[in-house]
């Protein structure tokens, strides 16, 4: 299959699947807004009202973290079984297996646009002062996209061989959720000697940088971003390479 056809098919199928997914529900497209809104509400009620310890601007702080985290976690979680779930199709056509996780990544990223828009609307209404530093947002999103894709492809590549890993991935994601500083500031809670370990997790660093630009009117930590972009790119190339090498093996083992 030519690269151009591959891309067209990927976009067509992702679009079609999004349409189907949503057509099952009475409220239809509204769910793309309601769904992130509801999870934001939960965090607001739990941490903003009941567990509120009087930290200033805690709710925007929290929502910034949770929105980016969910994009990452949903993508990795859904993509991990994607090649396995593509077994019906791959038995019939010689299609490159990277197609299946890419489809999941694209559709999750599309849904993230709605969650992100909600977040920005909330921030403006809160009100948070819009600053010039918001301009760095597209860059951070692009970096997160690379990181999401790298991890999602890696998981998708391995799971068909060891399906049991799906449970492990789920558990690891939960662990990383608590270690990404989503509902606490890492600088104040984690001991300095442990911080370097925490920031080895690119999501922890990314969330911190999202907050810097959106809430604290400051530019992101460029050196840190450079590190994770390089790391993410290396992992991405590696994951694509693995899937490419195993491309013809998947139909036999799935």
């Amino acid at each position: 299959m030519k690269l151009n056809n591959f891309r067209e098919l990927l976009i067509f199928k992702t679009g079609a699947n999004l349409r189907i997914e949503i057509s099952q529900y009475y409220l239809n497209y509204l769910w793309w807004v309601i769904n992130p809104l509801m999870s934001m509400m939960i965090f607001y009620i739990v941490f903003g009202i009941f567990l509120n310890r009087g930290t200033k601007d805690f709710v925007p702080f929290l929502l910034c973290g949770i929105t980016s985290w969910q994009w990452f976690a949903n993508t990795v979680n859904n993509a991990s079984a994607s090649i396995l779930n593509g077994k019906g199709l791959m038995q019939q056509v010689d299609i490159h297996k990277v197609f299946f996780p890419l489809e999941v990544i694209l559709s999750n990223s599309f849904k993230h646009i709605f969650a992100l828009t909600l977040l920005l609307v909330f921030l403006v209404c809160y009100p948070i002062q819009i600053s010039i530093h918001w301009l760095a947002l597209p860059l951070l999103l692009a970096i997160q996209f690379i990181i999401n894709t790298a991890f999602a492809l890696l998981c998708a590549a391995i799971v068909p061989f060891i399906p049991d890993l799906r449970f492990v991935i789920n558990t690891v994601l939960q662990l990383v959720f608590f270690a990404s500083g989503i509902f606490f500031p890492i600088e104040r809670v984690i001991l300095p000697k442990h911080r370097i370990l925490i920031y080895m997790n690119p999501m922890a660093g990314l969330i911190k940088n999202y907050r810097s630009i959106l809430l604290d009117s400051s530019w992101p930590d460029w050196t840190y971003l450079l590190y994770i972009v390089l790391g993410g790119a290396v992992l991405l190339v590696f994951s694509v390479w693995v899937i490419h090498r195993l491309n013809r093996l998947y139909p036999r083992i799935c």
Partner: protein
Amino acid sequence: MPDQLLSLHHVGCRYKIRNKRFSFSHFEALKDVSFSIFKGETLGIVGQNGAGKSTLLKLISGILLPNRGEVVYHRQVTVSLLSLQMGFSPELSGRDNAIMGAMLLGYSKAEALEHLDAIIEFAELRERIKDPLKTYSTGMKARLGFAVAMKMNPDILLVDEALGVGDAAFREKSTKVMKEKMKSGQTVVFVSHQDHAVKSLCSRAAWLDRGVIRCIGDVEYVLEAYQQDMKQKNR
């Protein structure tokens, strides 16, 4: 010397089966298969269920790689496997499925849209084409799959039990189109249980039996041998 498109050299293919936890066994779908496909011919493959016919088609189309031996492409060839539920997702409309099916077989989106009317026309689905595929009958789905595949012109077309689809009228129509394609020089590898289809369509036949080719060559001769063997087994 006729024009070779593709050859199989001592090809074997086995599947891994997990019995429980960490114990595995293997199933050898193909043991040792060698033959060539020539340009413009229609090769019929007969054999009982589980003889390895579908695995063979998957190897030729490049979906699977063999464990042993090799598949040699003598030149750049495109190979398509016609199976009747090509990329079909039940929730999507017949129209979207047709577009997706054509794209999966190697068309660009523009080309797929260009052929769309002809596909719908051939499948005789008319206004039902807008409905989700899950509301279709088995015959309608099969007709759509056949119509999509018939619009494709790969160098080698692989057909897996496709001519028995639809009602009598559609069957006649599909056989006719198939024959026209073969006459126009389309190379076809054709798997079937129906002897009469093989007899009327194929220029050469092969009999596959539990992963090995028992005989290959003249259609009459191969079918005769196959039927003799079947009779003996049934006795």
